[in-house]
């Protein structure tokens, strides 16, 4: 240990990689140990697929195999909730806890802190998508080929961004205690109205009218387009998601500033 007198120069900051890896590892460990969150998050999509996907697995939806179509639907549901709750709401509630203050006084950049959270959400997304695909294959003989698996995975992981920001904005707006409930209130109707819980082909007319304005609709379209179920240009859906991301980011920043001045 060095002794007494204060050198004029400060010690160098840590390279950003080591704190990022330590934080990301800790986030993943916490995630895997949190069974109250992990088990329902993995099981519910499987349950929904077993109830609604398996009985219709051999039919056709939007011109493609209905089993694969609904596998993508419930994967979309799973990753939307992971992004909204596992990232957004969790970050908003941790932010108001003392732990983030403790991190702010350490010589670590916020990029590493957020990067670790994002990494954990991506790991969780990968885990739940893989588990659902395995379940669909083993139980229902609904398999995605490896290129298809990767193509759907890429779209669904990248498309999580607006939902993560939505959860964050909600958490910051209504506070950590109410955030979970409000997120439910928004995500469940949105999932029903976007064709993710019920295919749009069998949905009521007013749902068909509002669906194209919802982020979850465009998210679903991106997933299904990997299967060839969607006609039209894909970039339109990416553009909608990017627009929603920007809007939710602005709301989250505004809410964060508001929360800061109220402290």
């Amino acid at each position, binding site marked *: *240990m*060095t*002794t*007494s*007198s*204060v050198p*004029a*120069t*400060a*010690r*160098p*900051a*840590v390279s950003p990689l*080591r*704190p990022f*890896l*330590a*934080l990301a590892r*800790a986030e993943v*460990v*916490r995630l895997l*140990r*949190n069974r109250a969150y992990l088990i329902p998050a993995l099981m519910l999509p499987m349950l929904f697929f077993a109830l609604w996907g398996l009985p219709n697995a051999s039919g056709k939806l939007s011109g493609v195999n209905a089993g694969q179509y609904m596998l993508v639907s419930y994967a979309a549901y799973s990753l939307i909730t992971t992004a909204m709750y596992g990232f957004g709401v969790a970050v908003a509630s*941790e932010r108001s*806890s*003392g*732990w983030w*203050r*403790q*991190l*702010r*006084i*350490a*010589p*670590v*950049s916020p990029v590493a802190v957020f990067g670790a959270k994002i990494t954990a959400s991506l790991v969780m997304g990968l885990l739940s998508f893989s588990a659902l695909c395995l379940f669909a294959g083993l139980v229902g003989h609904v398999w995605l080929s490896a290129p298809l698996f990767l193509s759907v995975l890429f779209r669904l992981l990248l498309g999580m961004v607006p939902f993560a920001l939505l959860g964050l904005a909600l958490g910051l707006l209504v506070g950590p205690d109410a955030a979970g409930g409000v997120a439910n209130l928004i995500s469940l109707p949105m999932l029903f109205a976007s064709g993710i819980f019920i295919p749009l082909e069998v949905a009521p007319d007013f749902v068909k009218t509002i669906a194209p304005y919802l982020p979850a609709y465009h998210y679903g379209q991106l997933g299904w387009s990997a299967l060839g179920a969607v006609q039209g240009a894909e970039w339109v859906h990416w553009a909608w998601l990017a627009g929603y991301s920007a809007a939710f980011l602005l709301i989250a920043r505004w809410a964060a500033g508001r929360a800061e001045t109220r402290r």
Partner: protein
Amino acid sequence: MNDVVCFEGVSQRFGPVAALSDLDLELKAGQLSALLGPNGAGKTTAIDLMLGLSQPTSGTVRVLGADPRKPSTRSGIGAMLQDINVPAGLSVRELVGLYAALYPQPMTVGKALSLAGLTEQARQRVSGLSGGQKRRLSFALAVVGQPRLLLLDEPTAAMDVQGRAAFWQGIAELREAGCTVLLTTHMLEEVDRAADRVIVLNKGKVVADGTPNSVRERVGLSRVRFVSTLSAAQLHALPGAETLDIGQAGQASFSTRTPETLVRAALSAAPELSNLEVTRASLEDAFLSLTNDQLPAPAAAVSA
């Protein structure tokens, strides 16, 4: 430029409220200073500024010769904040190890745990710790980065006697290694024993600054205790009392600047009084006198 902390003309306003006004303050390397003051005096505001958590409305704050808002400066600072809600799901060892990875030259996790008296709890989940153990965990987080400046906000609150003893033992070891320490506390006896320097803040201003002894002497208070048959009204009528506590069975305890006058008056009013005791006031008496706005400010304490 040997000051670990240097405030020059620092003011901090929150809307219409001035939490700190035109504060000058230097902390010398190796000192253990106690920052005292009633709630709302500006202690936590001053610590937040040293940690780079906020920026002063005016004036400059330098810590370790640099701006504390820069990450490279913060790598030399460790702090124990008032309430940390540690993330659930990790063990004590894992959490301290995680925090160590954020610093360029941390001490070993084992060393930090032993300084904080948490070696036995290393494998325990952080969510299962008691209130006092959580304070010790907070201490382990504060020291694991091997800071040159340690800022401790209410470190011993909620600690039991053993916890406090382990804490002061840890502080002594860090000071031997040359660490500068600033703490806030309401436990004035601990301050009297351990601090090199006491800085008393009131309403955002320094009202006294010096060794515990010199602060006490500057206030010039004594404590007078005796047992008598005098009524409460008669006790209150005695001259020169600043504060009066009336206890069981005729016990009375005064703080006063003029003990001779008070004792003379008490003896003539109650010749039978017994158990007379005149002592130099405690640091707590001095502190109350310095921060009590009802009383006239002691002239000598204004110089700081």
